[in-house]
């Protein structure tokens, strides 16, 4: 094959934003190492600002890069990739802003924290563009291995170490299971590229008129692997512990960016590569979604720690997103994409409120939130908006997001799933409202208010704006989601 300089340039052009962020991550990490060696420490704010510059430049770059495929079609840069890359970068942006306080309290390795965060973001950006299972696997590993480190980042804290251990073990298992599915799929179809797998499955079906049992096995393993990554019941056992133990900004990042990226990968693998074998996996996805909604919401009621409650709530939220996956068509993909956008702002915002609260109070217990509206009306109001959005109350983004996924499921004949979804939403409303009631209806008068720092106020305002914009003016955002979903099914 002769070397084609034009093709070479075109290939690298599509992947340049990732390359830039990767180099930036190296610079931030190295700067942290050298500034420590030179004796004078750099302030956390400086690191954060430089990290933010990198993230913003990448975000603009991603928005300006033209669509295209690279490296023989294994890496694709389309509207879906752009949208999810921006969601991931938005998640990183809010995480960096909100982690200034918590990171500042760490004595050691403050700069590397931001560097690792960027490495993980690069992994997620590659993940949403991968149309080849090996690249997808490497991208998933790049994002999770850095997150293992970040989860255990508070070295002096026993809970953080425990979170790291649990995450690394479950992450390893899930990778192995996912990879076994990939290997079987490769054996069945002779390809690791999604297009090749799609054709291979078609050939298999044509040859015998049914699907071989090996394919079912491969699909179940893939689904289990994705289930672990998405923290879907019954593969969610690691999530609450890791969420509680990890530094809160990392918890937020884990629950938003890494899940959004995994949703994009799920869409590509299942809606494109495995679309023709949907009779084998749609039922399983429906059952997993129902389980996630039930287990997540019911277990969240009894939690006394706000981070654990939000962990179980995010298990349920992923269940709601997957309700859209039972409609293997453009509508299903659109609703899931829209949900991912709504979820980004609402969940991120909720965690930022938790960060703002624990910055001042040093506590994550729900009982300590009592009478918060007297001490910090800002946090109380913002937190209520985010929780209502998670619960799906209009006019917030969560309402339309839930409406769209339920609509997609009903149109595909999954009424029972929607009924489960609606019933569990009522349960969800109960525990979200409990927190809100605690914040606004105090029995006693606590003394002393506390202000919210400027970066956190900005992050909260961005999230709140996102939640309300998505809820009140959904038009442009639905268009974006639709354009993204159309990439999955060019024929429809």
């Amino acid at each position, binding site marked *: 094959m002769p070397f084609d300089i034009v093709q070479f340039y075109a290939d690298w052009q599509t992947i340049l934003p990732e390359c830039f962020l990767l180099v930036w991550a190296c610079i931030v990490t190295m700067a942290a190492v050298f500034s420590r060696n030179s004796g004078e420490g750099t302030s956390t704010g400086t690191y954060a600002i430089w990290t933010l510059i990198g993230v913003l430049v990448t975000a603009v770059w991603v928005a300006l890069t033209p669509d295209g495929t690279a490296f023989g079609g294994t890496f694709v840069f389309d509207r879906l990739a752009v949208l999810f890359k921006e969601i991931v970068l938005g998640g990183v942006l809010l995480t960096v802003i909100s982690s200034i306080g918590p990171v500042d309290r760490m004595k050691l390795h403050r700069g590397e924290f931001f560097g690792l965060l960027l490495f993980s973001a690069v992994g997620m950006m590659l993940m949403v563009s991968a149309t080849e299972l090996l690249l997808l696997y490497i991208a998933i590993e790049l994002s999770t291995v850095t997150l293992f480190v970040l989860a255990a980042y508070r*070295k002096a804290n026993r809970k953080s170490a425990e979170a790291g251990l649990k995450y690394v073990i479950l992450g390893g298992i899930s990778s192995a299971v996912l990879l076994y599915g990939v290997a079987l799929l490769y054996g069945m179809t002779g390809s690791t590229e999604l297009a090749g797998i799609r054709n291979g499955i078609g050939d298999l079906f044509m040859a015998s008129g049914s699907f071989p049992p090996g394919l079912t096995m491969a699909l179940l393993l893939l689904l289990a692997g994705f289930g672990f990554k998405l923290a879907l019941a019954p593969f969610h056992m690691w999530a609450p512990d890791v969420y509680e*133990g990890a530094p809160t900004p990392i918890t937020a990042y884990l629950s938003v960016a890494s899940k959004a990226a995994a949703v994009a990968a799920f869409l590509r693998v299942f809606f494109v590569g495995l679309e023709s074998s949907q009779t084998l996996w749609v039922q399983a996805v429906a059952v997993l979604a129902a389980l996630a909604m039930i287990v997540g919401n019911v277990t969240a009621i009894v939690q006394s720690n706000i981070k654990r409650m939000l962990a179980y709530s995010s298990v349920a939220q992923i269940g709601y997103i997957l309700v859209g996956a039972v409609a293997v068509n453009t509508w299903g993909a659109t609703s899931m994409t829209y949900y991912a956008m709504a979820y980004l702002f609402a969940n991120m915002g909720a965690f930022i409120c938790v960060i703002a609260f624990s910055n001042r109070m040093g506590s994550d217990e729900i009982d300590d939130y009592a009478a918060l509206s007297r001490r910090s009306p800002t946090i109380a109001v913002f937190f209520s908006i985010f929780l209502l959005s998670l619960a799906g109350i209009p006019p917030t983004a969560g309402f339309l997001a839930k409406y769209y996924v339920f609509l997609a499921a009903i149109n595909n004949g999954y009424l029972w799933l929607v009924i489960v979804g609606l019933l569990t939403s009522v349960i969800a409303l109960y525990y979200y409202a409990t927190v809100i009631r605690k914040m606004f209806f105090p029995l006693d008068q606590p003394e002393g208010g506390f202000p919210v720092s400027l970066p956190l106020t900005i992050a909260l305002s961005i999230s709140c704006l996102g939640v309300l914009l998505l809820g009140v003016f959904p038009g442009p955002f639905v268009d974006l989601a639709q354009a993204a979903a159309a990439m999955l099914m060019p024929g429809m």
Partner: protein
Amino acid sequence: MTVGLPHFLALSAIVFCIGVYGMLTRRNAVGVLMSIELMFNAVNITLVAFAHYITPQDVTGQVVAVFTIAVAAAEATVALAIVLLIYQHHKGIDVDNVNIMKW
């Protein structure tokens, strides 16, 4: 009897199951990590066997196996560092003792 693809697949399935069993029953954190390595290696056997028997003309399976080995090594590095951290906190690496958080 000639050794063919089914034998390799059976071997890898057995190794994978041993890995799952070890991961569930081992109480030593390093033992758990070794079980996970077993699971990865089972996958590698599958990949290389498929590459040899299904697609002899290209090397995709072997390439994936090489990448898997490299990634597993990177993951093991981080995992062992975290085990070391656990050791400092708990003066031992029995995973049963690592349970401050429950429910």
